[in-house]
């Protein structure tokens, strides 16, 4: 009886057993470098093309802000879902996350996006706000009037016979400024983004 009790004591009150019992056993909590974190700046020059904001699936996660005269994307961690699309969409490699940029270079992948504008004729009240706020329209016709009736036919959308019509859909850059400017949520920008991979330089 006593010998077996001693045996148990000897078996369990060992230094090795005690350290294993009181300390953590698995490997320390480290995040491998190839994991995608929140995108960080690579200090390349941002050209303010807003491709990152266009592709971002999470609301209010990324903004391109001008600080001290330099445009740079800003990521908001409470909103960002760490998908890494902004890293891949950026043509200037301004952002980096994990090994995403290296993988993209090695595999020659990129995004190609087209945008489709639709205007709901039932809710559109022909105010012309969308045509006026559109930054592409402004570049084509700087004298664009408040009613959205420009002198040029090269603009993306204009009022024709009292109806807001989209005439040059292909010029849209997907910035969604018209959506924000529309008081009735009548105009919608649909983006169609394709992943493209070059094979043998084609």
């Amino acid at each position: 009886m006593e010998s077996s009790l001693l045996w148990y004591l000897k078996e369990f009150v060992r230094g090795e057993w005690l350290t294993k019992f009181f300390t953590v056993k698995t490997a320390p909590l480290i995040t491998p470098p190839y994991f995608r974190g929140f995108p960080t700046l690579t200090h390349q020059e941002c050209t303010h093309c807003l491709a990152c904001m266009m592709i971002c699936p999470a609301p209010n996660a990324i903004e391109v802000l001008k600080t001290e005269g330099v445009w740079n994307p800003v990521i908001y961690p409470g909103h960002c879902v760490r998908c890494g699309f902004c890293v891949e969409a950026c043509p200037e490699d301004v952002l980096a996350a994990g090994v995403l940029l290296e993988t993209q270079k090695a595999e020659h992948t990129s995004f190609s996006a087209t945008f489709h504008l639709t205007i709901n004729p039932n809710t559109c009240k022909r105010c012309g706000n969308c045509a006026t706020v559109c930054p592409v329209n402004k570049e084509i016709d700087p004298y664009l009037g408040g009613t959205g009736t420009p002198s040029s036919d090269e603009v993306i959308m204009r009022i024709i016979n009292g109806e807001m019509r989209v005439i040059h859909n292909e010029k849209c850059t997907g910035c969604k400024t018209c959506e924000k400017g529309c008081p009735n949520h009548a105009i919608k920008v649909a983006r169609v983004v394709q992943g493209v991979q070059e094979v043998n330089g084609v």
Partner: protein
Amino acid sequence: MKALQDLKNAVRSRSIHVCYVNVGSCNGCDIEILACLAPRYDIEQYGIYVHNNPREADILLITGGFSPQWEDKLKRVWDEIPEPKAAIAIGNCPISGCVFNRDGTYLDPPVRKHIPIAAEVPGCPPRPTEILEAILSLAPVVFKDYERREE
């Protein structure tokens, strides 16, 4: 009394009882919390125990963007937790509503409007390591010298 308080601090930092509540998320963050329980991360070796009973809990993990049905219920769950207690928001949803925070939604984020949140873990979903680190770094701060602060 100093020795007793030190003992309490030591024990409390090694025995953290956790209750998690989903106030309307997609379950992604719940799956990451579940991954913490699995052998790869194994939160019990750090002295964290999951009970899912607010009356036994020290720390409340909240996932989800706060749907209207939780208006009165989350407050009740929070009140049932005995002092000292802390709440951690897990994932983007309790912080900002994440992808569910669109026009016309019924969600009412952030959760810190409804109950006091001690820490927020951003990510969609956050990694198990990030959840673990948040609990482990928060618990000693919240529970240290609790009785002395009460006086």
